């Protein structure tokens, strides 16, 4: 496949080319999606270097598994599904040991209370802070819907939960976000 046609190919065509051993197709898929895969893994993984390795591993898996992709979901959903699997596996493996820095990370650091923080920052910044402070489960679904623009069905496939669970989890995430904003002194009037 010529360079130009690889660059213009859709994700599914790229996967077909990768299955035939076309390295350039994988490099194109990587250039297109490595950023989103890295960001998704960061929702599970605090360590940036580890997230980087896991994200790269996702694409190395694609090199091996492309021939088995059945094209029943979007390629991006497939990538994020592999990413979630890898991130959870890495976490399970690491649970056997305790990282002192991580263990100490949960201790109070004398930071400002949400109310004081809210007084110091703009509303937009407060909202970003509150999104970042959401529990992992809620932050992940918010990212999948708003940043990765993933449909209800695709979120369900990536997270391996029913579609109704996806909808209620997203609703609860929004409600939790409003509660955090209220705790920060910014009542949004909902719910």
């Amino acid at each position, binding site marked *: 496949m010529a360079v130009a046609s690889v660059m213009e190919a859709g994700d599914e065509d790229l996967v077909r080319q990768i299955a035939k051993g076309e390295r350039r197709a*994988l490099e194109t898929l*990587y250039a297109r999606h*490595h950023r989103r895969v890295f960001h998704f893994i960061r929702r599970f993984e605090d360590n940036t270097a580890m997230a980087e390795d896991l994200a790269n591993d996702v694409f190395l898996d694609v090199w091996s598994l492309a021939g088995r992709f059945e094209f029943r979901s979007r390629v991006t959903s497939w990538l994020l599904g592999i990413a979630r699997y890898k991130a959870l596996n890495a976490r399970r493996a690491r649970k056997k040991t305790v990282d002192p820095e991580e263990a100490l990370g949960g201790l109070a650091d004398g930071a400002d209370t949400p109310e004081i923080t809210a007084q110091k920052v703009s509303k937009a910044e407060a909202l970003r802070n509150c999104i970042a402070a959401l529990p992992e489960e809620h932050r992940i679904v918010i990212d999948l819907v708003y*940043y990765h623009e993933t449909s209800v069905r695709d979120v369900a496939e990536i997270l391996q939960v029913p579609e109704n669970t996806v909808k209620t989890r997203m609703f609860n995430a*929004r409600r939790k976000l409003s509660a955090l904003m209220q705790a920060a002194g910014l009542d949004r009037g909902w719910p």
Partner: protein
Amino acid sequence: MTRITDEERAELSLLLPWHAAGTLEPAEARRVEAALKADSGLAAEYALVLEDREATRELAAAEAVPSSMQARFDAALSARVAGDSRRAARQAVMDAKGPGIFARLFGGLFDSPRMAFAATAAVLVILVQGGAILALLGDRAGPEYRTASGETVPADGLQVLLRFAPGLSMDDAAAWLEERGARIVEGPLPGGLFRVAFPGSAAGDASELAERLTTDGAAVVLALPSG
């Protein structure tokens, strides 16, 4: 303007984030659009959803991807491609030599190499168990040889209990064993372990061998001395 019921409102409220992201089916998107015009409360809720979406995207945009990521991926991919080429070349040599004894035995029975590999492992287990029974029935222990230093090594070589890395393919596991002249004599055992013999191993300690194996690449996550 048509009013919406509380039940409809609750149902459509759940869909607002996907409406904002543009990922609803057209029919659902039309329902939400109509409801937003009819219900000011739902419209206010949608305004918050749009704010949330904007903030989420800003957060992601601010999160930099490590500069080393692309270079590390290129290096890892090159290594993977080279490994694949080596395996293909090795397979070509094996094909040129003709099928091995187990391939000849099982080639007609199994379509996939994985099944043939599993059958081979099962036969090995049976043979080993048969050998153990014969040894018990006989009046002497199993075959072994004594080294110049007087150390005893089973004829089968040292044995180690291994757990392969999660996700390691059967092909990669077979290649790993082949490279080390090792073979599975029992497994899978509880805990996903395999008992693996290293017939070519010189006299030495199985503990040392197990320790070496755990640091020998990423294929093995656990190695314990056996027997």
